[in-house]
């Protein structure tokens, strides 16, 4: 994926935080969030942070497998985040309840596998509140 974040910033470019609260497979919400994030970058706006909360943490699952003719939303998020160097945080208390763990959480809870894309960081709600302080807009999906 090419980096969209290199688009020249338009005058009046805004900083956005996106709160994604829906699982990738059960509603349109996280697909809409993904398309919205791509559009923001294409239009020269900034994304302060993506924050995945509740069922939304499943968007960071690296273990999702989709049929070939369907989009793999978690993989698409991963590609977007990597290509544009976005800050992406997965809420820890939502994540561990749903089996989304990185190496550190897997060790802490003595689990045998990791399931969180490395492009996202497992963190706390404080990082949502902090992102809001640095944003002009916050949109929530789901």
């Amino acid at each position, binding site marked *: 994926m090419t980096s969209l974040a290199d688009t020249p910033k338009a005058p009046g470019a805004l*900083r956005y935080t996106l*709160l994604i*609260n829906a699982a990738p497979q059960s509603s349109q919400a996280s697909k809409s969030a993904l398309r919205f994030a791509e559009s923001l970058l294409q239009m020269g706006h900034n994304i302060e942070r993506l924050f995945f*909360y*509740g069922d939304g943490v499943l968007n960071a699952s690296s273990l999702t497998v989709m049929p070939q003719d369907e989009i793999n939303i978690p993989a698409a998020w991963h590609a977007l985040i990597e290509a544009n160097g976005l800050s992406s945080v997965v809420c820890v*208390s*939502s994540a561990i309840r749903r089996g989304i763990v990185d190496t550190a959480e897997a060790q802490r809870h003595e689990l045998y596998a990791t399931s969180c894309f490395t492009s996202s960081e497992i963190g*706390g*709600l*404080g990082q*949502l*509140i*902090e992102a*809001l*302080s*640095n*944003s002009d807009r*916050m949109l*929530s999906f789901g």
Partner: protein
Amino acid sequence: MDNDISNKQTISLIARRAPYGSDGARQTLDIAFAAAVFEKSLNYIFIGDGVFQLVAGQSPKVISSKPLGAALETLELYGISEVFVHRDSLLSRGLTESQLVCRAFLIEDCALKQLIAESTYVINL
């Protein structure tokens, strides 16, 4: 963005779901506590079935859920005093102010609209 501006930001949390049917209620509460730790100006608004979250004396253990009331009682300790309950939502569900687990301002439609309009961010789970 400098500190002056971020300190003036107001977050409105809208709790509109019954307490145990989904995890929206718990998620909203957790955001409230996080915002309080960061000393954010916060409106906590209960509307629709969300008013059931505030009803005292719940025993959700029998359905394997954790009670919300104990945490809601501590809102004031965390400096969250701007708790609003939509009056029509409360009354139309046969509830009264005396049944609520914490102190809350009863609010009408137009005041609610104004509260939301004046908020920097609205989180509606």
